């Protein structure tokens, strides 16, 4: 997490006293907090590009917390969720955790429990952002490759020798070497292994990356 980023914690709970108490606690440890009384209010927030996490009460008027978790997952918004509840709700706990919640706390929880969960959640978000940034970077680099270079890259990362690649693509070995050099440069790969890792990472985005189409 870069120093310039300041994580922000969102809390959605219809009980004002609980909302304010969480805000009080988090501010006393120097964290940024934004409180919302409903999921609708939360969705209407102004977006910030900082690591964040969401503290969500399981029972909210109209929408269940779990339901909202599903909605968030479906919408592609990737924000770590910490559930809090005033009930026991054991079955919901399992469901929530399976759907990717960071933690599930029962009121009244100790302050340290909440702070630890927030810490983990924010870490998770930072990592995700890093990864997203990396992939974005890789994508940009990959976009720079010419189609030929991409073909070469696909076969190189499969472990083929230059000779084999030349035969496969119908070009001279020299041409292959030139393309290969370009790929390594543009992709900023330190080694073949590095390139392979990059290809792997990109393979979720680009179908033909490891197998030429």
């Amino acid at each position, binding site marked *: 997490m870069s120093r310039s980023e300041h994580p922000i914690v969102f809390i959605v709970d*219809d009980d004002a*006293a609980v909302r304010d*108490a969480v805000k009080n606690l988090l501010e006393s440890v120097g964290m940024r907090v934004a409180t919302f009384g409903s999921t609708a209010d939360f969705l209407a927030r102004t977006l910030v590009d900082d690591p964040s996490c969401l503290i969500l009460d399981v029972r909210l*008027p109209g929408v269940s917390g779990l339901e909202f978790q599903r909605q968030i997952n479906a919408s592609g918004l990737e924000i770590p969720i910490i559930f809090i509840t005033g009930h026991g709700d054991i079955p919901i706990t399992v469901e929530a955790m399976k759907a990717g919640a960071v933690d599930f706390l029962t009121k009244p929880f100790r302050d340290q429990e909440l702070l630890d969960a927030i810490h983990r959640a924010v870490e998770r978000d930072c990592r995700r952002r890093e990864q997203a940034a990396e992939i974005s970077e890789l994508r940009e680099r990959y976009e720079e490759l010419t189609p030929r270079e991409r073909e070469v890259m696909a076969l190189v990362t499969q472990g083929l020798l230059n000779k084999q690649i030349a035969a496969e693509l119908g070009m001279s070995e020299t041409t292959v070497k030139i393309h290969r050099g370009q790929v390594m440069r543009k992709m900023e790969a330190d080694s073949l292994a590095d390139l392979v890792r990059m290809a792997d990472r990109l393979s979720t985005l680009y179908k033909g990356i490891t197998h030429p189409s």
Partner: protein
Amino acid sequence: MQTAKTFNRRLGSGLYAYGIPIVTVASALLITESLKPTVFPTPLFFAAIVISTWYGGTGPGILAVILATLVLDFFFVSPVRGFTLRAADIPYMAQFILPALLSGWFTKKRKEAESELKETRDQLDMKVQQGTAQLRNTNEKLQSEIAERKRAEEAVQKTQADLAHLTRVMTMSELATSIAHEVNQPLAAIVMNGSAGMRWLAAEPPNVERACESMRRIISEGERASEVIKRIRNLSRKASPHRETLNLNEVIQDVLALISTQLAKSRVLLTCDLKPNLPDVVGDRVQLQQVVLNLVMNAIEAMVEVRDRSCDLLIRSGIDERGDVFAIIQDSGTGLDAEHVDRVFEAFFTTKVEGVGMGLSISRSIIEAHGGRLWAVPNAGPGATFQFALPAAEIT
């Protein structure tokens, strides 16, 4: 022994009876003799005959007539002191004898009438006495029946209070989750504010203002929690039924306040349609709260599993055609089978997996003890409607 006594009495009275004409005729004779010639002889003898017939009866009466005739003839009709009767004196004698007999006869009749009257009166007296004795008897029986009925009623009331208490305890365990929930909210706020307060004070420099604010919040949340506990404790107190004039809308609102947090956090959409200026009813506040709580909790639980439609809870109050005060609790939950509509009120009948089956049976007996009625109707759409009506309090 009765016959001997009556015989003796009869004998005694017989002698006594026949003595009367002798005495009375003799007296008449003496008086007439001593007052002669100023007094007519016949009137006193008439008196003697009447007296003899009256007190002696028919026989003595006739004897009196005979004696009087003889005495008259002997002492007053010439020849004086002789029984011979001249032809000229026969009309005189006849004029005496005939009326004498007549007066004897009238007297007898009169006496008979009087004794009949007396007998009838005696019979009546006896009948009256019998009747009075019967009435007294019936009255005593009635009193003892009333006393027993009163004992039975007290026993029923005690059982009801016991059952109501039991239900309160059982509903308590059903309610345990929502009670814990109601109290956990303020507790969580208290813990977090306390922890925040400590950190504010530990800051460099200490932020006293925010620490104080944290304390204030702790106090207010503590009070909120104790309010909830107070309401719950009132509900579970085992008190004998305490009648008072109360407003059903207030009872409903009290119950909703009790479970406000749980209600807010559920997916239930509550619509409250309480008629303003609802007439008062007379009843036990805690018991009626119990009933409303039971019905509302049932409604909420019926909708817990509902996913494909909205969970609507409608609570309405008003006055029905009879002038009774009614309350309706309608949900859009799993509903009731037509065959269960009346069975749900049976003790130990439940369609819930972890149900006990006492809630509705107790609720019904509470409402009925208040002179009202409680019933259920499946909705045209999803869910069920429970309704109860109570007689309005009489305005004094």
